[in-house]
């Protein structure tokens, strides 16, 4: 998350007409900025913050009254109920495990791809490979996941047909509890890695080449050059990608709705989807309580990662 430096109005010190004109000009300059920023801020508050506030308020209401004009508030009863639900904890555990694996896989693949694309050894076709990498990102996610579901199909899927050709055992895909999470992770990797690679590529473009040349002159091996010269310079992109990926994968939802519906047998019953099922049972209070807990976890982890990443920066 790159911090934007907001232009702050100049201090109201000094006096005299000259100072006043200077201040007036400064305000006029800054007011243009605020004029452009206010509509977006208003939209964010109305469509972003206000629904979150309403959701948190609903988590303190009795489900049967949640959608009434005057709901009945029950304090922390919904939170107590979900904390007594063993499935909530197993769902949370699955969500955290998936998030860790997905973040590592996506950032690892994205970084490797970005380094390959940035390499001077890639003589031609750079544009083609960039397009190939980014095309899945702009593909509508539902359409992409439907195709992945077909690829994994145990009877008609191209993946198992290919494995069969190679004489390899079939892959359980989303039909087996043992492989469902991996299947979902691969589909999400296909869809998201390109986005993170673009961020890495942008950072690589502003890296100091002189430092790499100096390392070459000093006899550094490729791995040493990468660890001690390139990687430190990629810190901004790593922090941005880490925070964004954590937020993205902690709230994984669409892929589950399309490919597994939380199964098989709860193997991909991540917290967002588990909370969604409560809406279907009209248990709005508990559903929003779960959503609030997830929101708090996402906020804490993202903030912690960002703070750690920014620590020591000059």
């Amino acid at each position: 998350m790159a911090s934007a430096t907001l232009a702050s109005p100049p201090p109201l010190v000094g006096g005299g007409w000259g100072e006043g004109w200077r201040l007036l000009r400064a305000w006029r300059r800054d007011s243009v900025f605020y004029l452009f920023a206010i509509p977006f801020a208003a939209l964010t508050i109305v469509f972003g913050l206000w629904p979150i506030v309403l959701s948190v308020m609903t988590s303190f209401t009795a489900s049967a009254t949640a959608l009434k004009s005057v709901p009945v508030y029950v304090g922390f009863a919904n939170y107590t109920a979900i904390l007594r639900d063993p499935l909530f904890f197993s769902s949370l555990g699955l969500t955290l495990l998936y998030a860790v694996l997905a973040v590592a896989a996506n950032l690892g693949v994205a970084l490797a791809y970005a380094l390959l694309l940035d390499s001077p050894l890639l003589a031609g076709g750079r544009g083609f490979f960039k397009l190939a990498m980014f095309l899945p990102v702009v593909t509508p996610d539902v359409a992409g996941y439907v195709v992945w579901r077909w690829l994994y199909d145990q009877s008609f899927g191209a993946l198992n047909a290919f494995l069969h050709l190679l004489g390899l055992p079939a892959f359980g895909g989303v039909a087996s509890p043992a492989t469902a999470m991996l299947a979902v992770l691969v589909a999400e990797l296909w869809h998201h890695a390109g986005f993170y690679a673009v961020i890495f590529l942008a950072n690589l473009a502003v890296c100091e080449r002189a430092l790499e040349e100096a390392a070459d002159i000093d006899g550094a091996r490729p791995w040493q050059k990468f660890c001690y010269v390139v990687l430190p310079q990629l810190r901004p992109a790593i922090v941005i990608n880490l925070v964004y990926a954590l937020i993205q994968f902690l709230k994984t939802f669409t892929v589950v709705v399309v490919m597994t519906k939380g199964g098989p047998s709860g193997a991909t019953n991540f917290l967002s989807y588990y909370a969604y099922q409560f809406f279907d049972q009209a248990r709005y209070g508990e559903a929003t309580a779960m959503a609030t807990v997830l929101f708090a976890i996402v906020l804490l982890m993202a903030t912690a990662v960002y703070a750690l990443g920014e620590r020591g920066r000059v």
Partner: protein
Amino acid sequence: MRMSSLPRRGLLAGLLATPLAARGEAAQQLTVWHDLGDNGTKWFAALSAEFAKAHPGVTLRATSYPTDQWFGRVVGAVNTDTAPDLIFNNYERVIRIAAQTGKVMDLKGVLAGIADKGFLSEDDLRVATYDGRMIILPIQRVQMAFGVRKSWLDRIGEPFPVTWEDTMRVAQKFRDGHPDGDPGSKVFAFGLEAAQPRDLIHILDLFTFGAGLRSTLIDAEGNIVVDEPQHARVLEEFLKTYTAYGFVSPDTINYSFGEMYQVIEGGKAGMFRVGDWNVSKWDRPDVLNGDFIVGAWPKFFADRQNGVVIGGMRGIAVPENSPHKDLAIAFASFMLTQPAQQASLAIMGAAVRKDLDVAGLSPRQQAFAKPTWALYAYDFPESIHPFYPQLEAAYHRKLLDAIARPPADLKAFIAATAQDMRVLAKQLAEKKD
């Protein structure tokens, strides 16, 4: 050119009087919210045209929402006094609206005022009543029969299966042969679903009620029935259909309605659920071209008649804060008349009247319209036990686990599951109290 010497007020009055006199009443628009899609909107348009003959100037605007959105929109609208005039859906869905809002009108008095209603059975009226109130006027009896591909049966030389043993034999031939005539294709004996509680338990309901039993999980008195001998037998065969017998696609564990329909309409399943609303689409040349027979669910027990399941009742409900309440009530009553019911049968494939003309319907539609099979009504445990959705979700998890990781001893699994459900039902009942 200037206006003539005719008094302007008189001219204006004359101009206005003519259309008003022709209308007979002020122009009004009723609104109805449903989840039946384009077909439903087409049906309501036909009803609107018919209703307008007796109520000139009155039109009906029908809006369809996906079912899960329909709930939220209706509850929100009713609770904020922006309700539509009418809502149309399955009985068990209107129950949720009634429970969430407390603002669904009791239509008992309305039904009492309708003279021509002898076609409504006690079962029909029971499934229209919740908590002592008639929350819907029953309009469409939702029947769900057992369907089998006709050409597949012809190819394997079998008649429509009657008993479960017949069904197993046909299923094995579908599974192992090439009943679709294509040696290169992979097909399945059954097209089923399992992902959500209302997917898997719904199919189990059909097998259970279709076999002539009552209740799938819990009866009206609150007793868990899962391990009663006949229920346990049906459940065991049901689970084996998904597992040991290999009668369904392995991906069925993740299938909901959409995926199940893809398998059926894609011509990959030999046996499947057929709802009365499915027939008009599946009769089309670009779908199944009418290549299926509908009949009763498999017979499991010699002492019980198998039949078709009345999976529900679709009806019309009137919110207490309906903007045009009197007119809405008139329209709701109109939906039970012969012309309205004829349109319902022709367009939606379902109705409640028995005196409708079926000559123009396909053999499969006629089978639903003039049923010769036994009809068993679903018992709607959610209308009796408020905790039922949670109990069902827990039962679904157990069954799904048994499908994903089949237990070595199904009988022991069923006994243990029944005991777990008893404990949970007691806990949930005490919590609700």
